[in-house]
């Protein structure tokens, strides 16, 4: 056994898992607050990455300006989607709302094809290119810096949810909507805030993942990998999203390295099947979740 190789592979997997965790966080925030399974999360990521391409590539803005603008654009998109398409669906069956999010995903793909064509794209390089070594172990610079940025955003989120008024309102609404409403919390605003924050996390992850692997209108398919993460972790558990994200990222990479690229997805779906049998609500999910 080449332990150095195993260490390097594991490091790359954990770093990728960090980005999965960030996307999963976006997914869970929206679900936790609004009980909507957002199948358009991958496409929101994609849209933010295209915005970055437009700002940094087309308009030649500095990445320091382009990244925040693109992330804000993605967050704004989330807010607009909630207000115009999800809110009118309040009270409808969960499957109808899920279908709306699938429709939104389709619309976003079409929109991107109309504006940026269906050509594959590469984002302008904005992360350092010098190889990163942790001891004797090599880590691709894009993955290493992507992981650092992703983790920083995650920590900021956790601090916000723990200590800010908005975070407390979000957690209160997630625990009991009626109680939160009776305590004077503007639940509708919290719903909107959840979509904005969820989309913001997804947008950061979208730009970082696209910087690593390229961008095309099919980019949103990564949302499927993240669906595995949130189901394994528990749809309404932020801790579950973080742990499962890192674990699935690691597992996918190790399986790809030792068994071959074609076994990446089967390995993660095998874990999903086992978890669903043993813990149908995910590792850290609560029991009253309704599956659709």
């Amino acid at each position, binding site marked *: 056994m080449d332990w150095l*190789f195993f260490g390097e592979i594991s490091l790359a997997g954990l770093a990728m898992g960090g980005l999965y965790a960030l996307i999963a966080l976006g997914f869970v925030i929206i679900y936790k607050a609004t009980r909507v399974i957002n199948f358009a999360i991958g496409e929101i990521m994609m849209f933010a990455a295209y915005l970055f391409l437009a700002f940094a590539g087309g308009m030649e803005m500095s990445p320091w300006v382009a990244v925040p603008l693109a992330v804000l654009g993605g967050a704004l998109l989330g807010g607009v989607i909630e207000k115009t398409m999800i809110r009118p669906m309040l009270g409808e069956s969960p499957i109808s709302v899920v279908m709306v999010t699938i429709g939104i995903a389709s619309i976003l793909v079409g929109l991107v094809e109309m504006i940026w064509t269906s050509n594959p794209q590469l984002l302008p390089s904005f992360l350092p290119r010098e190889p990163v070594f942790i001891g004797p172990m090599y880590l691709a610079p894009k993955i290493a810096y992507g992981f650092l940025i992703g983790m920083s955003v995650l920590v900021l989120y956790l601090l916000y949810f723990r200590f800010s008024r908005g975070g407390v309102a979000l957690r209160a609404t997630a625990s009991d909507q009626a109680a939160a409403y009776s305590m004077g919390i503007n639940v509708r605003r919290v719903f909107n805030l959840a979509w904005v924050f969820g989309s913001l996390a997804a947008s950061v992850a979208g730009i970082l993942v696209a910087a690593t692997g390229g961008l*095309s209108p*099919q*980019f949103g398919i990564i949302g499927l990998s993240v669906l595995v993460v949130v189901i394994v972790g528990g749809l309404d558990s932020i801790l579950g999203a973080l742990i499962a994200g890192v674990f699935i990222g690691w597992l996918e990479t190790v399986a*790809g390295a030792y068994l071959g690229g074609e076994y990446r*997805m089967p390995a993660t779906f095998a874990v999903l099947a086992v978890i669903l049998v043993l813990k149908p609500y995910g590792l850290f999910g609560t029991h009253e979740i309704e599956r659709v």
Partner: protein
Amino acid sequence: MFNQVMRKGRRLAGIGSVVAALGLAAPVLAQDKEPIVFGGSIPLSGVFAFAGIHIHAGLTDYTDWINSQGGINGHPVEYVMEDTAYEVDRSVAAFKKISGNDNLATYYGDSTGFMKAIASEVNEMNSVLMSGASFATALTDNEQYPYQFIPGPNYSQMFGIILEYIASQGEGGDMPTVAFVYSDTEFGKDPIENGKARAAELGIEVVEEIVTKPGSVDVSAEVLKMRRARPDYIVFHGYILSPINEFMVQMRQMGLDTQFMGTFWSSDKLIIDKMGEDADGYMGVMPYNYYDSEEGGPMLDALRTQAEQSDPEAGYRPTGYMQGWFNAMVWTEVVKRTLDAGKELTGDNMAEALASIEDWDTGGIIGVPVTVKNMSFPVGRIWRVNAKEGRYEPVSDWIHLD
């Protein structure tokens, strides 16, 4: 007297008008013959639209050009297509609709999946010759697909050309090593087994084989495997752009001097446009001259003139355009040979005409005379990216596989 002259004059003028009218009508009369229809399932939208748009332009421009030359033996050519979004069911529906036209002779299929799915119907009809975007090895099986051909080398033959080039780079009996990186798709896996067999025949060791998901994926772990295998060459297949760029950039960051090569759909100028300086040195196998190459020839010049005429703003035309044009060129040659032999345009007759193509001068589209073998044109050349110039330049002679 004056009246007589006037009457005679009028009569002469009348005769002159008739003669002039007949003269003008002569080419029109020639084109009064039944049209010959080129059909197509074209992916103008969807994942393959980046190429489909240019394939469509190539087919359209060729049709306009051949009609300006008097059509095929006086028959005008009509190009009828439908957008398929690169979906097999839509391609099949488009074929069924377009094949309702009695004059349909040839057809452009947008994918291997479609060409396989429609094969039994095409075989049963025995009235259409089909080619298209696919270079799949399977389609050169004459038993199963007698009326379908490949407008260039099939993917296995492309690997054969690449491996012959790699073998030619061995010095003093020290044969270079190679690794294959391909997508986990039918397209990606197509040439791998034949490629490994051919490498073994040439004495080239395949030191690593990596399968990835197609498109946007993180390949850091795969690059780490390459760091240990240290191949002299990596051959990519089944990709358009990503993750080729990541392999190249990360491996160069590690200080490896591996060279990178790809097959037809991985060898468009898109790689240069998107990767910039990082694309320098990348090599691809291409059966056609690039639009902006220094090569020339009567047909290549006609293509450039027609392309400029149809869209003066377009500038460079990608490989999809060349491929569309060449498909229609082959159809024309096949139809012409069939008609010249006094035969009907049946699938059998057109397949026979195709098989009879030997040492065919393509007027510069392909740089050497080509011979059809097993319903394909097994010829190609290795081109290398000169990032500074922003184009591919030839680094090998034309390689025609036996």
